[in-house]
C-alpha cells in the first residue's frame, strides 16, 4: 500500500524549509508520498491545514509549528482520527499532552546553552559577554538563555553584561551591537543566536576594525553561510544543528512507528550537539550539512542505532 504522510510547515523560511527537505529526502528513500502544507505564519491557517490533512486521511503526520500550542491541537485532531503524529522543534512541550504523540524531535537547546558557556569560560575567562538573541519570545531562545545564564553563573569565569533582541533580523542585530558599543557597555565576547545575524555583525565589526580586536563572536546553527566565517576565523565558535538532519530523523521516527518497527510513544529524541570550530569545520560528521547529504545516514546510524534496521531497508 502506498503510504502518504502529511507535513505542516510554518512558513517558507530557510530553517523550516531545510527541515522539509530532510523529511522529503528520507521519504523519497522510503518510497513514501508526502503532502506539505504551508501555514504562512497564520495560526488559523495552521489549524485548518491540520484538519485538511486529517480529512485526507494521511497515514502519519509531522508538524512543525510556530504556535506553541499548534502541536497540542495536532495531537488532539490526529488522536481523534487515529493518525500517528511526530512533532519537530517544540522543546518537548507536546509530550505533556493528554493525547500521546509518537515523538518530539528537538535540538538540545539546553545543552547548547551550557556548551557555549563552557567554551567561553575556557577560552576567554574574565571577559564580559553580550548576547544578541533571536526573538525573545521564541521558546528555543528562552530555553537556551536560561541554561546559558545558569552555566555562566555556575562557572563564574565570565559575566553577561547585556542581552538584546535581534529579532532574527540581521539589520536589527547590527543596530543593537552598534548601540551596545556606543552606549558604553564593556564586553569583548558577543554571542549571536544565529549565523545570519552574526554574518551581518561580523561585516560591520570588520569595517570598524573591532572584530577580534577585542570583540570575539560566537554563534550557533552551523549554517552553510556560517562555515566560511568560521574558516576565516571571524566566528570563533559555533554549534552545529542541521534542520535537514532533524527533518530526516523526524521522518524515521514517524516511519518506524507507522511500519510497526518501534511502537513506543512519547519519545523525546534529541539531536546531538556538535561543536563547530576551525578544526572541525571540514568534518561533515561534526558540522552536519544543512542540505541533503548522505552523511546523514551515517550519522543517524551512529547516534540513533535504533533506526539502523529501518535505514538499511531504505533504497
Amino acid at each position, binding site marked *: 500500500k502506498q503510504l502518504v504522510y502529511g507535513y505542516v510547515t510554518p512558513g517558507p523560511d530557510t530553517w523550516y524549509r531545510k527541515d522539509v527537505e530532510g523529511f522529503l529526502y528520507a521519504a523519497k528513500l522510503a518510497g513514501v508520498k508526502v503532502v506539505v*502544507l504551508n501555514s*504562512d*505564519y497564520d495560526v*488559523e491557517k495552521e489549524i485548518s491545514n491540520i484538519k485538511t490533512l486529517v480529512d485526507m486521511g494521511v497515514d502519519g503526520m509531522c508538524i512543525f509549528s510556530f504556535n506553541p*500550542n499548534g502541536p497540542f491541537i495536532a495531537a488532539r485532531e490526529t488522536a481523534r482520527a487515529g493518525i500517528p503524529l511526530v512533532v519537530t522543534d517544540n522543546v518537548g512541550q507536546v509530550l505533556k499532552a*493528554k493525547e500521546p504523540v509518537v515523538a518530539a524531535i528537538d535540538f538540545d537547546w539546553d545543552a547548547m546553552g551550557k556548551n557555549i558557556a563552557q567554551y567561553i569560560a575556557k577560552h576567554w575567562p574574565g571577559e564580559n559577554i553580550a548576547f544578541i538573541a533571536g526573538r525573545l*519570545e521564541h521558546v528555543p531562545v528562552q530555553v537556551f538563555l536560561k541554561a546559558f545564564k545558569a552555566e555562566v553563573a555556575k562557572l563564574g569565569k565570565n559575566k553577561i553584561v547585556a542581552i538584546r533582541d535581534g529579532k532574527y533580523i540581521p539589520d536589527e542585530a547590527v543596530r543593537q551591537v552598534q548601540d551596545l558599543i556606543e552606549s558604553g557597555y564593556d564586553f569583548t565576547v558577543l554571542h549571536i543566536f544565529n549565523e545570519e545575524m552574526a554574518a551581518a555583525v561580523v561585516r560591520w565589526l570588520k569595517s570598524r576594525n573591532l572584530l577580534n580586536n577585542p570583540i570575539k563572536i560566537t554563534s550557533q546553527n552551523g549554517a552553510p553561510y556560517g562555515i566560511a566565517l568560521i574558516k576565516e576565523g571571524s566566528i570563533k565558535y559555533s554549534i552545529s544543528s542541521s534542520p535537514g538532519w532533524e527533518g530526516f530523523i523526524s521522518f524515521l521516527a514517524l516511519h518506524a512507528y507507522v511500519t510497526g518497527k518501534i511502537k513506543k510513544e512519547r519519545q523525546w529524541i534529541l539531536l546531538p550537539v556538535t561543536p563547530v570550530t576551525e578544526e572541525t569545520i571540514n568534518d561533515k560528521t561534526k558540522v552536519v550539512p544543512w542540505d541533503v547529504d548522505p552523511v546523514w545516514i551515517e550519522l543517524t546510524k551512529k547516534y540513533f542505532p535504533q533506526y539502523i534496521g529501518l535505514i538499511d531497508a531504505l533504497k
Partner: protein
Amino acid sequence: MEGREKVVIEKSKRPFYSTQWFFLLVAEASLAIITGSINPRFFTLNNMVNILDQISVLGILASGMTLIILTGEIDISIGTNLGLVACVSAMLIKSEVPTFWIVMVALGLAVLNSMLVGISTIAFKAPSFIVSLGFLSVFRGTAFAITKGVFQTIYGKFETLGLTRLWGWFPLSFLIGLVIYIIVDFLLRFTRLGRHIYAVGSNSLAAFYSGISIAKTKLLVFFINGLLIGLASMILLSKIGAAQPTTGSGMELKAIGAVVIGGTALTGGRGNILGTFLGVLLMGIISNSLNMLRINPYFQEVVFGIFIIIALGVSVFSAYFKKG
C-alpha cells in the same frame, strides 16, 4: 412656474450585475469552481466549514475595521490589541479565574485599548495611522513585558467559543461572526449612529454643521471596535489554546485588506459590510484553494498575491459596466 414641467430626478437603480460586490462574488465563484473541478474535495461540507471556521476571527475584526474606516480613521493596532488581550485572558484562565470575569476583563481591556487610540487621535488632532502605530508598539510591548515573552497555554480549557460545532458541523465561531455582520449591517443602515458614521467620514464639515458631534461618533466607533476585538480575541484564544505577544500580529493588514477589497474607501464615508464579508471570504477561499490546488507550498505566497490582483482586475469590469 406655469407651462414648464417640474424637474424630476428618479433614482436610477444600478442593475445588480454592475455593482462591485457582484464582481467580487463572481471572482469568488469562479475561483471556487476552478478549484472544485480540479480537486472535488473543495466542495465537501468539511472543507466548506473549514473555510468558514478559518475566516470567523478575521471577519469580526474586519467588521470593526469597516466602521473605523468609514469614519475616515484607521487603526493598525488591532492585531496587537488582540494579542495583548489574548495574553491577559490566557493568564487569567491559567489562574482559574471564573469565566465571567475573564470575559469582562477581555472585553474591558480591548475596549480600553481601542478607546486609548481613539481618544489620543481626537485629543492630539493627529492622524490615527500614526497614533495607532504608537499604540501598536505599546500593546505588543506590554504583552511582552507581562508575559516575559513566554507563551501562555491553556490546554484543554476555555474551548466552547472556538471549538463548538453546532449540530455537529456548524462552527459556533462562524455563527458569532455572522451575527456580528448582521448587527453591524443593521447599525450602518438603519440607525442614527450609522448615518452619523457615513456623514463624519464623507464630509466632516457637513456633519459638524448639522450638529453632529464628530468626536462622539468616532469614540463610539472605537468603543464598538474594542468590543469586537475583545470578542475576536477570545474566539482566537479558544481556538488556538495559547497566546503570546505576537498573536494577532499582521491581522490588521489582512483586516484592512479585506475591508478595502470589499469596496470601502480608505478616505471614509463609502462602503458597506456586505463588501467586507465578501472581502474576508475572498481571502479565505484563496488561501484554501492554494492548498486544494496543491500549489507548491513555496509558491503559495506569489499565487496568493496574483489572485488578489486578478480579483481586483475582475472588478475593473464593474467600473466598465457602470459606464456602459
